[in-house]
C-alpha cells in the first residue's frame, strides 16, 4: 500500500530532518553570536569532543550500563516475582502494594545517600538505587495484567478443573505478558536514570567512574563540549535500551497482540 510505505519512510525521515534542522540552527546561532564554548558549545565542537574523548567516555558508559542492566534484570526478576505473589494472594497484595508505591514516590535522590552509606560495595549501592526506581512499573503493570484474565476463560479453566498453577501458567501469565512488557519498557529508561542519579550522589567513591560522574567532572572543569558529548551518549543509550525492549516486545507479541501488529496489515 502506498500510503503505508510512505508513512514508514516518514517515521524515520521526519525525526531525522527535525534533528538536522535543529543542529543547523544551533550551529548558526552559536557562530553568529560568538557564544563562548564554556557556555554553549556548537554541535561541531561537541562532535570533535565526542571523537577525541570517545574512547574514555565509552569506558565510563560501560560502567553505567553495567549498573543499568543489572538493575533492570533484578527489577524484572523481583518485580515479576512479586507481582505473581500478589496475584496468588490478595492479602499479600493489599498488605504490600502501598509500600511498593511508597518506595516509588520517595525521590531516589533523597534516599540514595543513605543507601550509599549502608551498602559498602559501591557497585551494589548503585544497583540498589537503580533497582528501586526500575522495579515499580514492572510490579504495577504485571499485577494489573495478572488480574486481567478474561472472565469466561477463567470460568472455562474452572469447568475443566484447572489447578491454580495451571490457571497461572496457561492463562494469567500469558494475559499479563503485554502488561509486563509495557512495564519493562518504562523500567528500561528508569533504570538508566536511577543509575545516573545514584552516580551523581555517590561521586567516584574511589572506584571506576561512570558516565554521570564524567558529566559532573566536565562541569567542574568547564569542559562543556565533553559534558555535552557525555550527555549525548547517555541519551543515545536510553534510546537504544528503549528500542531493544520495544523490539523484544514486538517479537514476543507478534502473533496475537494488537500493539505488535502493523497498522497496514488489518
Amino acid at each position: 500500500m502506498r500510503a503505508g510505505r510512505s508513512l514508514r519512510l516518514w517515521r524515520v525521515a521526519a525525526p531525522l530532518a527535525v534533528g538536522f534542522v535543529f543542529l543547523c540552527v544551533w550551529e548558526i546561532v552559536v557562530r553568529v553570536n560568538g557564544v563562548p564554548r564554556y557556555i554553549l558549545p556548537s554541535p561541531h565542537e561537541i562532535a570533535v569532543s565526542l571523537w577525541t574523548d570517545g574512547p574514555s567516555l565509552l569506558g565510563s558508559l560501560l560502567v553505567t550500563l553495567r549498573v543499568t542492566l543489572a538493575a533492570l534484570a533484578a527489577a524484572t526478576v523481583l518485580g515479576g516475582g512479586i507481582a505473581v505473589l500478589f496475584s496468588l494472594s490478595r492479602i499479600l497484595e493489599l498488605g504490600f502494594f502501598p509500600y511498593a508505591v511508597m518506595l516509588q514516590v520517595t525521590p531516589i535522590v533523597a534516599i540514595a545517600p543513605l543507601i550509599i552509606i549502608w551498602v559498602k560495595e559501591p557497585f551494589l549501592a548503585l544497583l540498589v538505587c537503580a533497582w528501586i526506581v526500575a522495579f515499580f512499573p514492572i510490579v504495577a503493570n504485571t499485577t494489573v495484567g495478572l488480574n486481567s484474565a478474561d472472565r469466561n476463560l477463567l470460568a472455562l479453566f474452572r469447568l475443566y478443573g484447572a489447578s491454580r498453577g495451571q490457571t497461572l501458567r496457561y492463562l494469567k501469565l500469558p494475559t499479563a505478558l503485554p502488561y509486563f512488557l509495557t512495564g519493562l519498557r518504562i523500567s528500561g529508561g528508569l533504570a538508566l536514570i536511577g543509575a545516573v542519579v545514584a552516580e551523581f550522589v555517590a561521586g567516584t567513591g574511589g572506584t571506576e567512574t561512570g558516565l554521570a560522574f564524567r558529566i559532573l567532572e566536565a562541569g567542574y572543569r568547564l569542559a562543556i563540549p565533553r559534558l555535552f558529548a557525555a550527555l549525548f551518549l547517555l541519551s543515545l543509550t536510553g534510546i537504544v535500551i528503549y528500542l531493544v525492549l520495544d523490539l523484544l516486545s514486538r517479537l514476543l507479541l507478534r502473533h496475537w497482540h494488537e500493539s505488535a501488529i502493523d497498522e497496514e496489515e488489518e
Partner: protein
Amino acid sequence: MRGIGKRFRSGVAALAGIDLDIGDGEFLSLVGPSGCGKTTLLRIIAGLAEPSEGERRLSLGPDGGGRMSRERVGFVFQDPTLMPWGTVVDNVLLPFRIAGRAGPAERERVGTELRAVGLAGFERAYPRELSGGMRMRVSIARALVTDPDLLLLDEPFAALDEITRMALNDDLLRLWEARRTTVVFVTHSVFESVYLSTRIAVMTARPGRIAADLPIELPQPRDRGLRTSPNYAAICATVSDELARAMADRSR
C-alpha cells in the same frame, strides 16, 4: 456413561422454582427475553454457579449415581473466548492440557475435531487471523474435543451475521446428529431454537421461570429445506405465541 438426568430448583431473584429434567440425548433450547436468567441457569447446570435454593443432580449411567467428571461437560460462551496467544490447536487442546495429558493421541483427537467443524488446514492459525464464524467453530471444537456427555451453549451465534449463523446452525445439527450428545442451547431466536431442538423451554423474566415446555416433533435429520416448510412455520408460530404470552403474563 451416557446421559444425564437433572433436577434443579432455584429461588433467587434471577430464577424461581425451576424444575427441569433433561433427558439423555436431548437437544433442549432455553428461549426467552434477555434478562430472564437463561445464562444463569446454564451456568448453574455447568456447575459454574451454585443455586441459592434447590438442587441440581447429575445422573450418570444406568445406575444414576456418581459424580460427573469435569471433562464430561463442554461449554461454549457467547464470545468465542479463545486464548489469543495460542494457535487453533493450542486452544482446542486446552482441556487435555489441563487434564495433564496432551500426548499424540490427544493431538490426533484435536485434528479429528477440527476436521469435523470444517477447520482443517487452520491448525496453526492464530485467533486474530480467523473470521468471527471460524473463531466460534474453534470454540465449538474445544467444547467437543473431550467428547462430553453434556454440551452447553450460551447464545453462541448471537454476534454472527445471518449467513454465518445459518451455516453454523447446520454444522451444529450435523455434529449433534452424529453423536447424540445431550445439548442445552440458550438463544433468543425462536427460529433458531425450533430448527435445532428436540425440545424448547420458554422462559420468562424476573424472576426467571419456565413458562412452557414444548417438544418439537419435526423429522430428523433436518436440513435447510425445513426452514421453509409449513410445519416449521407453524411450530415457530406456536413458540412465538408462548413467548408472547409468557411476557404478557409478566407485565400483567
